[in-house]
């Protein structure tokens, strides 16, 4: 007993000593990577985290209507509030009118109560002209929206610094006035269908690149060396060409006066111009073209390592060509298929440029809506929330990729 114990302690001591001795080397290795890790944290991770915060940030009501929120603390939640609340609202809106912040508060509340923006602006104009109370009657005379308890519970709820509103909206959910979470009306559920469409297009593109790419990867392994080199060039060159150039090429090809229509007409395959651009077909074709090399390369690199003698052995043992392919060859290419397909699926989820230029309104993906909410609607919270949803889906599949394939397996050409 005591002998083994000493041995064990000796082994532990040795282990600890080795680890300690290795520590400076580990630190030195790590310190070389630290500048890049630090840079990425500042220039890449921080912006993404900032985006995540924007998705739950809720500053408007809190900063523009602080007195109203304080007055609402004693409100019962079911009836129209009393004079003190309206007096506080009038004071807040008077200041908001002076600082020109009323429209911000109105815009924020408008997300949850349609029509609220104009009501808040009108009320702020009225409040600016009021010298003394009572205020309650004046507000109620102006609009019945101020009588509804729902209006006040939304205002009170938005006194919180963080809001689930944008994230819920991004997955077609909403908070009921009582605080519970429910689905939005079916005709207003737009974001889950967009996410579904994004996943569908990414799936179709992944499937097509596999069907088109697998034989190419195979022929690359059986072709004589020089021909294989030329073919490899033809796979890698598109990968090297700017995504915008490739998309531009598809715009030109798919246009109604474009090359494909001209060819179809010349061959008398069609007498009228076919609508190709701004369609799902055009989007999927262009994306498949762009993603093909990403699927081909990992499959090729796995196929190259499969010994041709295995197939010969299978055949000599009596397997037919089909059976030898499906039972011996195809299963061994699976790691490459998984790597290539996951990579293409991940990258397809984030497409923006190609659907924007080649797709129609029904082909716009989550990314396109993020851009629209930032640039056109100036609804940063919702854009950020859609970004969170897209990021989570992408990271989930990246996690799968890391588990099945590994980050160190990514090669470039």
């Amino acid at each position: 007993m005591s002998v083994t114990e000493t041995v064990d302690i000796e082994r532990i001591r040795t282990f600890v000593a080795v680890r300690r001795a290795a520590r400076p080397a580990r630190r030195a290795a790590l310190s070389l990577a630290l500048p890049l890790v630090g840079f990425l944290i500042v220039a890449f991770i921080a912006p993404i985290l900032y985006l995540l915060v924007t998705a739950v940030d809720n500053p408007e009501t809190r900063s523009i209507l602080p007195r109203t929120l304080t007055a609402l603390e004693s409100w019962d939640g079911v009836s129209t509030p009393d004079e003190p609340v309206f007096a506080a609202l009038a004071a807040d809106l008077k200041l908001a009118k002076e600082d020109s912040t009323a429209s911000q508060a109105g815009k924020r509340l408008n997300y949850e109560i349609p029509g609220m923006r104009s009501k808040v602006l009108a009320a702020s104009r009225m409040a600016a002209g009021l010298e003394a109370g009572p205020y309650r009657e004046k507000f109620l005379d102006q609009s019945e929206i101020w009588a509804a308890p729902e209006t006040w519970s939304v205002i009170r709820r938005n006194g919180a610094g963080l809001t689930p509103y944008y994230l819920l909206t991004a997955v077609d959910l909403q908070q009921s006035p009582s605080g519970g979470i429910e689905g939005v009306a079916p005709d207003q559920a737009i974001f889950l269908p967009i996410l579904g469409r994004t996943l569908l297009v990414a799936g179709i593109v992944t499937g097509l690149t596999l069907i088109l790419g697998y034989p190419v990867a195979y022929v690359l392994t059986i072709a004589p060396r020089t021909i294989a080199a030329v073919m490899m060039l033809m796979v890698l060159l598109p990968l090297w060409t700017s995504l915008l150039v490739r998309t531009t090429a598809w715009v030109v090809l798919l246009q109604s006066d474009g090359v494909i229509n001209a060819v179809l007409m010349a061959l008398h395959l069609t007498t009228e111009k076919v609508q190709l651009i701004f369609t799902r077909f055009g989007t999927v074709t262009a994306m498949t073209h762009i993603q093909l090399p990403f699927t081909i390369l990992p499959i090729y690199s796995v196929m190259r390592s499969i010994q041709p003698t295995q197939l010969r052995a299978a055949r000599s043992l009596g397997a037919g060509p089909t059976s030898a392919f499906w039972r011996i060859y195809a299963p061994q290419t699976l790691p490459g298929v998984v790597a290539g397909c996951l990579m293409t699926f991940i990258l397809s989820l984030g497409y923006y440029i190609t659907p924007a230029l080649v797709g129609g309104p029904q082909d716009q993906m989550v990314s396109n809506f993020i851009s629209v909410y930032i640039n056109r609607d100036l609804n940063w919270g919702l854009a950020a929330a859609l970004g969170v949803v897209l990021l989570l889906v992408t990271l989930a599949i990246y996690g799968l990729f890391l588990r099945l394939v590994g980050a160190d397996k990514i090669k470039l050409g």
Partner: protein
Amino acid sequence: MWLPSYATPSERLSRILVVAFAVAVMLFLIAPLFIIVPLSFSKDPFFTLPVREYSLRWYEDLFGNPRWFEAMINSAVAAVLTTILATTLGTLAALGIARPDFPYRRAIMALLISPMIVPIVIVAVGSYLFFGEFGLTNTRAGLVLAHTALATPFVVITVTATLSTYDTNLTRAANSLGASGLSAFFRVTLPNILPGVISGAIFAFATSFDEVVVALFLTAAEQRTLPVQMFSGIRDQINPTIMAAATMLLILSILLFAALALLTRKKAR
């Protein structure tokens, strides 16, 4: 090569079909790229083939019009700065990762590769909002920072791949012969891994030079890059100057690709 000697006639047929299919896919891959070249030399302002009359008028516009020319200069400056930053940071990191006692390898690799994975719009919007807090939107510095983050994974991957074939005993020998750490790196390690470093630099340059989405969000008219200028052109009114710009980008890609191919061939020798 094409066929094993024991192939049956039906196998021959299916093999021919597979090769024919692969050739068709290759054409699908390559043909669209080169469709833009003849169109950029067309005299007509629309895109039909065959081209009726050739002219250089769209190239005159590309190089003569200050908007296009400035966009090219802006792209080149941003790409060069990105290349310098990304290559330095990426090579250093790869040197660490390649050491056998690098800790938390999987987690750190996953982080370093993630800029390739995260949807580009998320990077663009995040940078737009975050950099805005520091007044970095509509500046070249902001664009270069974001592009560098996007470009570093390529440098890390290429340099790590080269280092996997580098014999670390060479560094050790240099050290034992009295070279300091820095001197051993610059005189022994770097010359040996240079093809990988240059490959990474080429990738970094191409990443920045071709990038549209982040540039769309982070630049104003003054820093507008060539791809942004092209993108807004395609959206509003597609004109053949865009074809000329696309052809120039295509030629640049081919040149960079050829440089890379030469480098990797040398490495293999």
